């Protein structure tokens, strides 16, 4: 599904990602762990195609096609989607209007989908204006439900969300990733950034990666890595950097 090779990324004059290699197969969900500022969000924004993130070396291949030089909308149209941790507030633009724009000619039942994530009362509200943490995430999930990407990136879907909402959001994300389907039939893939790991109660994940200082340092079983980090922090990862 997604193949990243020797990726180097600059923001401004500074290289922030170094030599990233990542392979996510069809139906797989991977977890990205790492301390604050290690480059996790940067990697997601780069994969999405945000113009501030300039690829200086390497390539991103999605479903067999090199998308390295493509704009964000071309990547989105090919099936890449992202749940943002802090999406912008857009004055005047109603959530319902955006959902209609995203759905294009598809005949989605927007009010019904909105109701399923308790966002039906927000369709006439300006996007993210005065939304609580949980409402922002539910709005993001709702947009993704209509966009229906094959590869879903989730940037801290549980941050700022209370327990009740985590269950709602977790279940909705599980369904975006076709977690209810048999593993053999599952076609959607995902990449999740989490600090707490709460979201992993709702998503079976296949592989974990730890980022430190703009590099992917190690890989392994996501729950084991998380357990390790919870016990010992990122100290060993940082030491890893020095070796």
């Amino acid at each position: 599904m997604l193949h990243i090779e020797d990726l180097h990324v600059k923001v401004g004059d500074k290289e922030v990602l170094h030599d990233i290699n990542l392979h996510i197969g069809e139906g797989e969900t991977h977890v990205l762990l790492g301390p604050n500022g290690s480059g996790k969000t940067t990697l997601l924004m780069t994969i999405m195609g945000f113009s501030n993130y300039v690829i200086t070396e390497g390539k991103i291949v999605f479903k067999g096609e090199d998308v390295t030089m493509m704009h964000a909308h071309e990547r989105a149209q090919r099936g890449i989607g992202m749940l943002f941790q802090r999406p912008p507030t857009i004055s005047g633009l109603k959530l319902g209007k955006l959902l209609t724009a995203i759905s294009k000619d598809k005949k989605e039942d927007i009010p019904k989908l909105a109701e399923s994530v308790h966002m039906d009362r927000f369709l006439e509200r300006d996007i993210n204006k005065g939304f609580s943490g949980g409402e922002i995430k539910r709005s993001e999930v709702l947009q993704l439900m209509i966009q229906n990407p094959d590869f879903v990136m989730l940037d801290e879907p549980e941050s700022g969300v209370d327990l009740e909402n985590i269950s709602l959001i977790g279940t909705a994300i599980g369904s975006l990733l076709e977690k209810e389907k048999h593993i053999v039939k599952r076609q959607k893939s995902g990449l999740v950034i989490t600090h707490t790991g709460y979201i992993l109660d709702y998503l079976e994940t296949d592989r974990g990666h730890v980022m430190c200082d703009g590099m992917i340092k190690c890989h392994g079983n996501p729950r084991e890595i998380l357990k390790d980090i919870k016990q010992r922090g990122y100290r060993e990862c940082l030491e890893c950097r020095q070796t």
Partner: protein
Amino acid sequence: MPPDLIPTPLSKADQERLAQSGIDLAMRNRCGSYLQMDQDIVHSECSQEGIEVLTYKKAMEKYDWMKDYAWKVVSPDKDEITKYVAAQKDPKGYVILAHKGSSNILPIQACLYLGRQQIQHVHNIIIAEEGAELHIISGCTSGAHVGKGGAHYGISEFYVKKNAKISFTMIHNWTEDIEVFPRSASVVEENGVFLSNYVCMQPVKKVQMYPTATLKGENSVARFSSIVIASPTSYMDLGSRAILEGKGASAELITRAITKGGTIISRGHILGKTAGTRGHLECKGLILQDGRIYAIPEIEGNVVGTELSHEAAVGKLAKEEIEYLMSRGLDEDEATATIIRGFLDVKISGLPEALQKQIDASIDVAEKSGF
């Protein structure tokens, strides 16, 4: 079978231009019409009981007291424009009179059409008597090929009596050679509501206006909304003023301004003269291409207990917002248009749906051509 149209000598293209400024010659969703082409009054009628649409001249003949409403809130000596109109021996324009307790949900349309290179002058008087509710859409447009030198001088005097309401929605659809000088003022009595909406999405050479609402009565309300786009050759000097005199009076002045290279001067003044009054002024500007947006918000309080505020911001489209929408599959042009559409989307409380739809429709036309 197509509906009967108000007869006019207009070409199909010009009829389309009228439609874009909210004038429906088939009278769908309208309860009355006034149509003036250059200096010829083509049509004047109203089917709504209790509401009259009269020519200025006829109103003066019919009601002796009407002269007490002429040149009372706009001074004939105000400037060159008012002097020119006041000096006319054969005054044109309309009087819309909503008698006590009458109301219209379907608006009255007033169309001022400029077809020749000359000055079109009008003097309008709009009165909502006690408890009346009156909604008007004023579509001002010119033929596609009027050429240089066309100008429109329009005087409008509004009287909102006790417990009455007037909404006046003006959609300008001129061409880039036309100069427009509306001069209008209103007086609002106890519990009266005055809504004034202005939309100009199309090129114009020059517009200059600064309507004033004097909120004399207790708990009277005025809301001014302006939604404008300045094309590269447009010069728009716009403003609105509210004078808060009655106890509990409140005013809101809202502007959304976009320049594609032209000049927009966005003035605003709220004067709080009495305790218990409130006013808010808001101007948001977006510069899409190098031009000028000059916001001059003024708030002035004279007494303890008046609460006034303003916010003004001029900026550009945020790349972060555009790319956010692009990440949902919209291309750059779609994302930009969607954000601009949102920026211009001002919902006006108290406005009938038909009028809000008309405002939305004129923005839709601009959106279709990519703003």
